[in-house]
């Protein structure tokens, strides 16, 4: 059942009476896009006949829809003695954040469930510090603003493109405050170095960081890079 099914006002697949043995649909827990790998992971569970192998098929749909617009792939799931099974599926092709994921389950006799309730693909926030290198410029004092500027050049040294947003988090910042910060993350200021698009393999981006250091003491910090959205409550 890898057809494209979409825009049906009644829901795409409807089972009436005992049609298709009332095969239960899977339940999707989450659909998460990893900006460091460019891949999504779909997790969920199936409650159906015990000790039976089912074919679970996955579909993506434009935001606001939840049938089976684009087939993503499938995997075989076997229920335990209680009829429970959990699964985790990584589609072979990239799945963008914001799409709705649905799934069906098909028993060995070819009875297919309705589409599951949709799970919207959210972008995870992951630590990509080891995927990026930084070349530091020196601190230069702007005599007019009386603030220090520093240029940082950040390069992708990993083997895959990293999707934005990408943030540089300043940890343990000493003797200064970050003037051009984009926000704070777990109490530390950060700057968004790439708001959209992606940083390809070997590509680099330069940013200017501005510090307020009224005592002129040595500015110190460590850092980490995150890819993915920073929660607004932080």
């Amino acid at each position, binding site marked *: 059942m890898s057809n494209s099914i979409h825009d049906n006002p009644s829901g795409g697949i409807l089972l009436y009476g005992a049609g298709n043995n009332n095969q239960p649909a899977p339940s999707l827990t989450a659909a998460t896009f990893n900006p460091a790998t460019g891949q999504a992971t779909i997790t969920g569970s199936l409650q159906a006949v015990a000790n039976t192998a089912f074919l679970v098929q996955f579909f993506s749909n434009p935001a606001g829809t939840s049938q089976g617009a684009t087939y993503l792939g499938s995997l075989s799931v076997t229920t335990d003695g209680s009829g429970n099974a959990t699964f985790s599926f990584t589609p072979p092709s990239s799945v963008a954040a914001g799409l709705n994921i649905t799934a069906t389950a098909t028993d060995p006799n070819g009875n297919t469930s309705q589409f599951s309730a949709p799970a919207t693909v959210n972008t995870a926030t992951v630590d990509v510090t080891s995927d990026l290198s930084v070349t*530091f410029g020196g*601190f230069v004092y702007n005599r*007019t603003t*009386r603030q220090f*500027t520093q240029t940082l050049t950040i390069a992708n040294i990993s083997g895959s493109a990293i999707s934005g947003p990408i943030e540089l988090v300043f940890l343990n910042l000493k003797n200064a405050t970050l003037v051009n910060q984009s926000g704070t993350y777990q109490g530390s200021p950060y700057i968004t170095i790439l708001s959209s698009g992606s940083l390809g393999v070997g590509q680099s981006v330069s940013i200017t960081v501005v510090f307020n250091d009224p005592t002129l003491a040595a*500015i110190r910090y460590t850092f980490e890079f995150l890819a993915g959205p920073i929660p607004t409550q932080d």
Partner: protein
Amino acid sequence: MNLLRRIPWIGLLGLVLILFGQSARADLSWTVSLDTSRLAADYTGPFALDFELVGSNGNTVTLSNFSFGSSGNAGPGSAFLTGGASGNLGTSVSFNDSASFFSDFNQQFTPGTALTFTMNSTLIAPPSGGTPDNFSMAILSHYETTNGYNFISNPPPPPGDTSIPTTDTAAGTFFNFNINGAVSTTVSSFPSASGDVSITVTPTTSVVPEPSTAVAVLFTLAVLGVWRCRRPRGKA
């Protein structure tokens, strides 16, 4: 006899050592020139030269041979020094950041037709992944001659000292450079934003070779001298 045959090769080895010595030279030198002929006409004085060395890697920067051009001169007034800065525009100015993260020199000057000086810097690079020292220059206008440049007030009280805008939109310097060792230390220079104060920064030769370079030079000269004296004369 075998030694005599090998002497040219030993000399060649010495030359290679010289080349390595040059790449590991101890410092770099530049000549800095600014056309200051329109400074007094286009901006409000008093004016001051402001130099800063920022960092903690133990570098030393020395400025000397100041020339202010026709009708220009150092002063009036003395220099204001912060951190590891010393000297004055009449003789030479020196910075060392071994003990101070922030070193600043500022002193009033009277602009003439052109400002030139010699700049010499050691080349201690930061540890791997670290922050390089940075040296920079700005020209201050509305200079407060009694107390010198005010670092604390942000913004300064009117008409407080401020730097003449340049095309360095981030920091407003006329030049600055990160000290990243012999190979990667280059000066970035910027004219005034309005284009009326131009600047050139020209590298000159290294003035203080590494000790290994001096040894290599002496060794090479000695070997070549011995070889020339002892080699058999060719027949006419």
